[in-house]
């Protein structure tokens, strides 16, 4: 399995990457760690004519304390997120979940930005972005703009990042509550979740669901019930409320609905 031919354009800065995007338009794709894009290119499900490599933009790999939030550079690899003491202290859900993405080799290469920009509803980190109500900084030809987590995942494998833009930073508000949990149900440890859920329990609780729709989704009804102080089991029963999980060889819709309620229940009990 070999990717189709492409022109390779390494970018040494975000500005250069954006200039290249402007030049090549929809013929171009951004590659960071490559762990979302390269498998698709090898299967020739993605055939970009130009590949803009942002992997060398070192100043997009950072984890910084910004007072009320932690800023994580889009090119920060999962491994660094998993091991970051700053994140373990202030956004433990994120650090923990990053340790469950793929397998160790994937975590050494894959980046948080790459994972989010892929917009895969089966992916782990988007659920954390939703649960933590993170903000995402997107840079384009007209400068920088900030998108809230709820507006980021727009359609199946589609995000708010336009073709001429680059995700540069994710801002995670510091978690002040005590309780959080990540639940992932799969057959093999290395697999995508059949269903998963990321929970942050605070005054404004957040619940992100994995593989429960065509995009990464929030369990809004359950969040509201949790906020209003309903019992855990009642909250868990609302896990799939308003959501439309897919049916595929790994799980039918009704099974996914059931799993979502079980996993949210466990998240609530474990948190």
């Amino acid at each position, binding site marked *: *399995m*070999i990717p*189709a*031919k492409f022109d390779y354009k390494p970018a040494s800065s975000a500005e250069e990457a954006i200039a290249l995007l402007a030049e090549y338009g929809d013929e171009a794709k951004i590659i960071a760690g490559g762990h979302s894009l390269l498998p698709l290119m090898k*299967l*020739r499900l993605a055939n970009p004519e130009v590949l803009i490599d942002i992997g060398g933009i070192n100043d997009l790999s950072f984890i910084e304390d910004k007072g009320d939030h932690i800023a994580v550079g889009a090119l920060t690899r999962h491994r660094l997120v998993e091991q970051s003491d700053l994140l373990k202290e202030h956004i433990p859900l994120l650090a923990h979940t990053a340790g469950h993405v793929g397998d160790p080799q994937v975590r050494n290469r894959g980046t948080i930005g790459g994972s989010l920009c892929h917009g895969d509803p089966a992916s782990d980190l988007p659920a954390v972005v939703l649960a933590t109500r993170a903000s995402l900084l997107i840079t384009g030809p007209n400068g920088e703009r900030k998108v809230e987590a709820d507006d980021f995942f727009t359609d199946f494998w589609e995000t708010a990042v336009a073709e001429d833009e680059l995700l540069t930073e994710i801002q995670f508000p510091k978690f002040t509550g005590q309780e959080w949990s990540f639940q992932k*149900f799969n*057959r*093999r*440890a*290395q*697999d*995508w979740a059949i269903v998963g859920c990321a929970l942050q329990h605070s005054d404004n609780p957040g619940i992100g669901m994995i593989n429960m729709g065509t995009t990464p989704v929030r369990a809004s009804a359950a969040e509201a019930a949790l906020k209003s102080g309903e019992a855990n089991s009642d909250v868990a029963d609302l896990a799939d409320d308003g959501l439309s999980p897919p049916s595929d*060889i*790994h*799980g*039918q819709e009704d*099974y996914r609905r*059931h*799993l979502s309620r*079980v996993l949210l229940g466990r998240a609530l009990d474990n948190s």
Partner: protein
Amino acid sequence: MSLVGARVVRKEDPNLISGRGQFVDDVKIAGTAHMVFVRSIEAHAQIKAIDVSAALECEGVIGVWTAENLELAPLPGVPGLERPTLAKEKVRFVGEAIAVVVAENSYAAADGAELVFVEYEPLGVVTSVNEAMADNAPLLYEAIGSNVVMEVPSPDEHQEIIDAAPHSVSMHIVNNRCAPAPMEPLVCLADYGPSGLTLWASFQAPHHLRNTVSSWLGIAQDQCRVITPDVGGGFGAKVNFTPELFIAPTLSKLLGRPIKYTQTRSECMTEMYHGRAQEQDVDIAFDDEGKILALRVMVYQDQGGYADPTGMGLPALTTTMAAGCYMIPNVSVAWKNIVTNTTPVAAYRGAGRPEASYLIERAIDQIAYSLEIDPVEVRRRNYIPTENFPYATHSEIAVYDSGNFAGCMDELLNIMDYDAIRDEQEKNREDPGKPLLGVGFASWLEIAGFGPPGSLEGFGHLGSWESVQVRIQPDGSAIIYTGASPHGQGTVTTFAQIASDYLGIEFDKISVRHGDTATIPQGIGTLGSRAVAVGGEGVKTASVKIVERAKQVAAHLLEANPEDLTVEDGNFSVKGTPAQTVSWAEVAWTSFRPLEIPEEMEPGSLDTTVLQQVPNFSFPSGAYGCVVEIDKETGDTRVRDMYLVDDCGTVISPMLAEGQVHGGVAQGIAQALYEEVKYDENGQPTTGTFVDYLIPAAPELPTFTSGRISTPTPNNTLGAKGIGESGSVGAPPAVINAVVDALRHLDVTHVDMPATPQKIWRILQGGAK
């Protein structure tokens, strides 16, 4: 010190742990071109047109061939059901080769293949034996008029006995289709020069390939050399013929340059033969005590889109072994071979025997459920007693050689605390925080040591013996050449252990060579758990012969009687006078010097070849116990403990035997819980990569607890029965019996493999029983 039975590190390992192994794709020859196939994306269709023009324009592409411009004989196969080497007019499964692109390198070949456009006219599709047997089902072979391509009825269905029995149970069992998926897919490299053909191939039986390819090409066998270097797993799937092995030599000859083919995993999942894919109707009749009165088995074997001789033989193996390790007075069997629009089916580790052990071990548990007798006790009441061997079964093929089935079960209950598990099971049922626990057993038995005359010929092999040549070198070291070409079994090590014992030469001075038809005597190959039971016996036979001759030389040098000599640790010495001794090195050196050997001897006579035969199959057996945990909420099912007692007779290398068991058990657990090749209603594979076909990794499998008893086979003098397939035969019924056991409080009596969490959840919801 005897090395047979000793813990010995492998001779194979130094290369393989340092990156110096040589698999076919590691062989580089100057001037090699690469081929990539264009494969059918339709499961059943007429080919209307193939447009290769864009591919021919592609940079680096040398040529594109289809059945139109490349005259090819069909693949060797089943008469009347031959498979075209490149699809002609019609395709019968997704993945069937339609065209081949050759280019300067593999990247350009892949680019070219993307630019071949095939126009199809889709036909009706059948993806299961039921669909294929339905009235008005679309036909794969119109000329035959039915998708049932072979039918073997039962001479007696024992209906009266079943009707009259106090109890009987009927089951429909699905033995799920599996992909053998060796970690190395099929790779071949053909170099057809003016002096003949050399074909490197990732294959289990080099001479079988050599003989078949040379006759297919119409060249003499001496002009055709097959090399199987390091082979990255086979599991039965690298012993059958697929088009690549024939097209590479054809194009190499045509283009006058070496041609390499490296299968991708995606191709491998649809092109390499699948295994199992069998359905069965099983009736078992028994008395109030649980003694079996009659067993009736009807097998429906899915052959996929093309019938392979091994695939056609699978039901014969299943039905032969259907009675397992039990005395069953009346057994009747019948089968149908059925074609469907799926990947062809042939051997996968166990080939027909896992299907047999699964049906009889599931049936035994049905008796236990019906009569509310412990499943261990039901087994004990029906075992063939040890004094009944050799035991003639319902099948002419199977006369069980030896066994101690009750002894295996005794040992199993020694290494597992059955009572404690039952207690825990009871407590867990009541505790909402604990998983459901299930414990399952399998007293399995299989047919192995494929060696008696006639046993492999029916699958297309030249013979059923195995070749071993022992050649003493002038310095007293020995080289053993064998046709039992391994692919991970450790044959280089086990054969050297046997040879060391019987030659009296140190282990470190023995090499074992295999996998090259230019240097190895005509052999058969490694399949059917036969390497040690047949080839290993050959090593002993040849070694004993060599030692007899060597003693003549040694006696000449020592001026003693050959009968008075013993050989050990590299020296010949006179019994009773150990001071009188001559080294193997001296004997070996002398054996090449005409003036120094006894007059009646020829120089270089310490070299002998045997084609080892054995009089009967061997029948390895064992008792496995499995404990599963089922999450009450999600249905997630995991094997917590696996207890394994094997009886493979004499063990040559305990460590390697354990490794074989572990690997087979892993594949058995995988079949029971994780793996299934699936198709959608259009015959499109939905499990075509390792993303969706769930081969378990380390976190998914338990640590194994092993025990062993040894009942040697009388059919070879080593007493070794073979161990390669045992785990895959014994594990699936043990696991599923445990899964059903965990659900018995819900009156569940059967769960089809694989026991996925979703399936179990539906049962827990009160769905299918």
